[in-house]
């Protein structure tokens, strides 16, 4: 449904998007993840035909966005970072105007009106239909923006941070709405809220500094990157060498001091993959006469993965065999 090949965008000497390639299948929801300034918005603007790329190709709904922009745009709905509303128009007037631009020209006025009413219901803005867009709260603005993107029932939906600025209840409603589009629409949404990706998206593209660092499902990313499972252990160290004891437990590969207090120390243990060392660790400590104060698994959240991927890239740009590098390669060929 969306195919991006070697897309590059340069603004003078600055490369905003650097040789990005990915595919989105029909009916899929793809999350576009990256820190601010990573090139998310630029990529989306290229996909929607707002600006041309310096190099590379983008095919949306079967049409090359550079060669056949009108056909591609007619099949794309786009919610920019700031919803493009005209403050002097009422919500209904605004959506009617957008419908005139975006819906097929043979649509009758009655159909158009019906569609505007239906989309206002769907996006929960029908109670504000007669309000001027300039007087709407941020949440309503965002949802009118979403209504605008959906009005012509596009095959492809591109949403630039659809939940930014919403309150928690609105975020949930918007997420449910996006999820309900799955199957009928192909959705690309960008965000820097990670749980959102885990909850709404089937696949994630993580980009940083204009490059794709990983493409995978949220679950796979978490699994791949966990590598070794780690454990937090707090020990009352009076009367024993906790470090050596922990080190000697079979299966433990690495022991780091996480925090140090008077009388007790917190350690971070790394164990071999798929091996549960908790019983052995507990027994070893207690057997040496030390007190085990706390033990809990340290899971890598999407946040950690994200940070790891986006900071790895910065500190060691040339080093490929990180899990991140593998993920990127695996993903781009998928």
């Amino acid at each position, binding site marked *: 449904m969306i195919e991006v090949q070697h897309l590059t*965008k340069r*603004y003078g000497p600055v490369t*905003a998007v650097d040789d990005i390639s990915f595919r989105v299948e029909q009916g899929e929801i793809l999350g576009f993840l990256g820190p601010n300034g990573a090139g998310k918005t*630029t990529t989306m*603007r290229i996909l*929607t*035909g*707002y*600006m*041309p790329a310096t190099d590379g190709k983008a095919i949306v709904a079967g049409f090359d966005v550079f060669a056949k922009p*009108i*056909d591609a*745009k*007619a099949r*794309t709905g*786009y919610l*920019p*970072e*700031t919803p*493009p*509303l*005209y*403050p*002097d*128009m009422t919500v209904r*007037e605004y959506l009617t*105007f*957008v419908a*005139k*631009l*975006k819906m097929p*020209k043979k649509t009758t006025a009655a159909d158009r009106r019906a569609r505007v009413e239906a989309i206002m219901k769907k996006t929960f803005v029908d109670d504000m239909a007669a309000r001027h867009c300039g007087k709407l709260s941020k949440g309503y603005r965002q949802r009118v923006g979403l209504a*605008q993107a959906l009005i012509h029932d596009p095959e492809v939906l591109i949403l630039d941070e659809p939940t930014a600025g919403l309150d928690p209840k609105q975020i949930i409603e918007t997420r449910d709405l996006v999820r309900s589009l799955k199957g009928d629409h192909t959705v690309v949404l960008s965000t820097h809220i990670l749980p959102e990706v885990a909850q709404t998206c089937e696949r994630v593209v993580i980009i940083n500094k204009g490059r794709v660092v990983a493409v995978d499902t949220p679950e796979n990313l978490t699994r791949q990157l966990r590598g070794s499972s780690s454990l937090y252990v707090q020990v009352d160290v009076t009367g024993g060498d906790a470090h050596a004891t922990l080190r000697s437990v079979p299966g433990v590969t690495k022991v780091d001091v996480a925090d140090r207090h008077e009388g007790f120390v917190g350690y971070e243990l790394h164990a071999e993959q798929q091996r549960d060392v908790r019983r052995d660790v507990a027994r070893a400590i207690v057997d040496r006469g030390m007190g085990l104060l706390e033990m809990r698994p340290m899971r890598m959240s999407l946040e950690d993965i994200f940070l790891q991927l986006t900071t790895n890239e910065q500190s060691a740009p040339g080093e490929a065999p990180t899990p991140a590098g593998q993920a990127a390669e695996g993903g781009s060929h998928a």
Partner: protein
Amino acid sequence: MRNALAIAGKELRGYFASPIGWVICGLFSLIFGWFFYTYLEYFVRNSMQSDMGQGGPMNINLSLIRPLFSNATVIILFVLPSITMRTYSEEKRSGTIELLLTSPVTDWEIIIGKFLGAMGLYCSMLAATMVYMAILFAYGQPEWKPLVAGYLGLVLMGGCFISMGLFISSLTKNQIIAGIATFIAGLMFWVINWLGDNASPTTAAILSYLSITEHFDDFAKGVVDTKHLIFYLSFIAFGLFLTSKSVDTERWKG
């Protein structure tokens, strides 16, 4: 074309949904009315004198409508920049340009739409002045043909200012800058022939040809000359062409 009309409709509604359209129309009518009143008073006084045998007979077209039209060009020069200054600037500043540029609409449809929208407001401004003309018809016998020519000239001349304003507005996000620059540019095209006074005959001819108002004189007299029509129409087309280039360049710059 339907897209262009949809955009023109949106533009026109935009002018009247905010105070801008009403204020511009109101002020224009006010100043035009003031000119109308002073010329009318002058005309009445003089025709009374000519009735008493001093001077020749008075012609309402020649001594009232013609100078009134010439004065209208000055008002238009001041007023039109405030119509065109927001056309592109405001869309760029508020980000709504993103909606237009990602809709299945060509750049030309947007430009034509915006041009027609501004022309719509301008023509309604001119339409309001027809009330004054109606007064003349009620109490006198002016000729209607020169009047039509005059209005045609005003519409075309305004079209030039609008097309130029559209181009200037597409260059900047700041509508104040767009407005002032359009006014200055309009003033330049208005007074450009003054330079010709001390120039060589060829230069003077070129400069006077470029002057927007110079071409209006014949229209005010009631003469519709193809030479002037072509000048105005090509001026408008050139302005719109520059706008399309500017929008396209903006795209590449991002």
